């Protein structure tokens, strides 16, 4: 017996879907109360159920939407297809959205809710920034040449308004906009709790530019559709809001 061979066998046996296979006597002994299969079943059950529980914790709205049985079936399929690689089990859902996106039995609404829930999880688990910047009033005209470093907990998710409504019922007004319209939702963690915010299209575009490392001057192009005076007011308001929400870790040329 070599250790590598035993560990490979154990991994493959525990990951066998359904009940553990028979013929474990070659590797394991029984006890007075349990057969080798019954003994291994303790690990078999723990492997699958612990991760399903962790995924339910990360995706409670998706679970409610799908129903517990369909949710469990999908999560078992996900765990089988995408065994976790992160040390912390809270991250085991990292590949779920991509997994669901490839399936033809998931509705766009359900996928959108999953995207939003994972955005919230990523925000919650993100590291603290080394610093949080305040609006640099003293820079004056030099502000346009500055770039923003955004805090790690700021995550954005692009979804339909319908998905957003399913994720947070009653929290968002569509204002006459078609439910098929898409919206950029920002997740952030000013202190401990995660907040989500649906962004107006111009702010969403500005945030995308900021995330790409563009200068503030370039970011302000997001407001070019407005008159010059309105654009200045709108850009100032949006940037001030970013700093107030503690989205900016650093603002420097």
């Amino acid at each position, binding site marked *: *017996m*070599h*250790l*590598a061979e*035993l*560990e*490979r066998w*154990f*991994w*493959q046996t*525990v990951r066998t879907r359904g009940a553990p296979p028979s013929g474990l006597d*070659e*590797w*394991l*002994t029984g*006890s*007075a*109360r*349990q057969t*080798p299969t*019954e*003994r*291994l079943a*303790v*690990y078999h059950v*723990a*492997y699958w159920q*612990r*991760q399903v529980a*962790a995924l339910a914790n990360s995706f409670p709205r998706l679970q409610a939407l799908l129903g517990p049985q369909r949710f469990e079936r999908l999560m078992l399929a996900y765990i089988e297809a995408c*065994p*976790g*690689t*992160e*040390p*912390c*089990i809270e991250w*085991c859902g990292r590949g779920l959205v991509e997994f669901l996106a490839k399936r033809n039995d998931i509705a766009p609404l359900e996928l959108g809710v999953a995207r939003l829930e994972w955005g919230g999880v990523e925000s*919650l*688990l*993100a*590291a*603290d*920034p080394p610093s949080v910047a305040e609006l640099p009033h003293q820079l004056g005209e030099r502000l346009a040449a500055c770039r923003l470093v955004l805090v*790690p*907990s700021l995550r954005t998710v692009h979804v339909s308004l319908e998905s957003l409504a399913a994720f947070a019922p009653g929290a968002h007004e569509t204002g006459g906009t078609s439910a098929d319209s898409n919206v950029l939702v920002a997740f952030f*963690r000013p*202190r*401990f709790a995660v907040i989500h915010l649906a962004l107006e299209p111009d702010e969403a575009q500005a945030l995308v530019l900021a995330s790409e490392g563009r200068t503030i001057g370039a970011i302000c192009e997001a407001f070019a559709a407005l008159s010059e005076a309105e654009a200045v007011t709108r850009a100032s308001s949006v940037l001030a809001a970013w700093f107030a929400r503690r989205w900016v870790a650093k603002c420097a040329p």
Partner: protein
Amino acid sequence: MNAVPASKPCLGHGFGLRVEHYAEILRRGVRADLCEALTENFMGRGGRPLAVLERVRRDVPITLHGVSLSVGGIEPLSLPYLSELKQLCNRFEPALVSDHLCFGGFGPHRAYDLWPLPFVEEAVLHVAARVRSVQDFLGRRICLENVSSYVEFRSNSLSEWQFLAAVAEQADCWLLLDVNNVYVSAHNHGFSAREYLDGLPRERVAQLHLAGHRDCGSHLLDDHGAPVASAVWELYRHARRRFGPRPTLIEWDENLPTLERLEQECDNAREVERHALG
């Protein structure tokens, strides 16, 4: 290896930090001699967990207890994991750092469980070499915890306590003796829990764990979901007489009680120690 600290700390009694208690801990602190932080819950994170750990650390020593080192695994040790662990050690200066004597998956993939190792010489040598590497990287000795187990490998040539002792000696590491795990495994495999304790090298045991378990009929399950059972308290008394004063932590993860109840369980452990040591 330049181990820091070189001597085993004698810290008293405490419990594991749990998310459900974070808000209260931030509000009023903890009533314990020390607290245990599950390493993975604080790696690469910010927000409330780190704030809680900062708050607790201001008041009491902490220990870092991991579940993902997979010291018995055959895949290479994870440098990113060890680097994060080292960063946590540098920031919070834990009194003790521990993980489990087990393997935790295969290749790059995680089982999110503590899988038992065969008690054979090959595993002793393999684990000892990896533990020495970990200790060299961290610049300190670590503790290895005995896991509760539910299977026995046909290939076992050593008893579990012989295996633990051999690993500790060859790796020059410490042992975190989980008394509840000894009790659970002794019941499941039919060996004497006292013989287990008596078979461990006294000087290698640096820390103790206590927890509750569940009787599933055919086996006991170490689910950390109940108060410490009376039979485990009895075994703890024996451990105290054998190993002397050692920091002891209460693990309670499921059916979580109030913070006050957890602190009371620490008081119970303290009382048992007082009676055992006279």
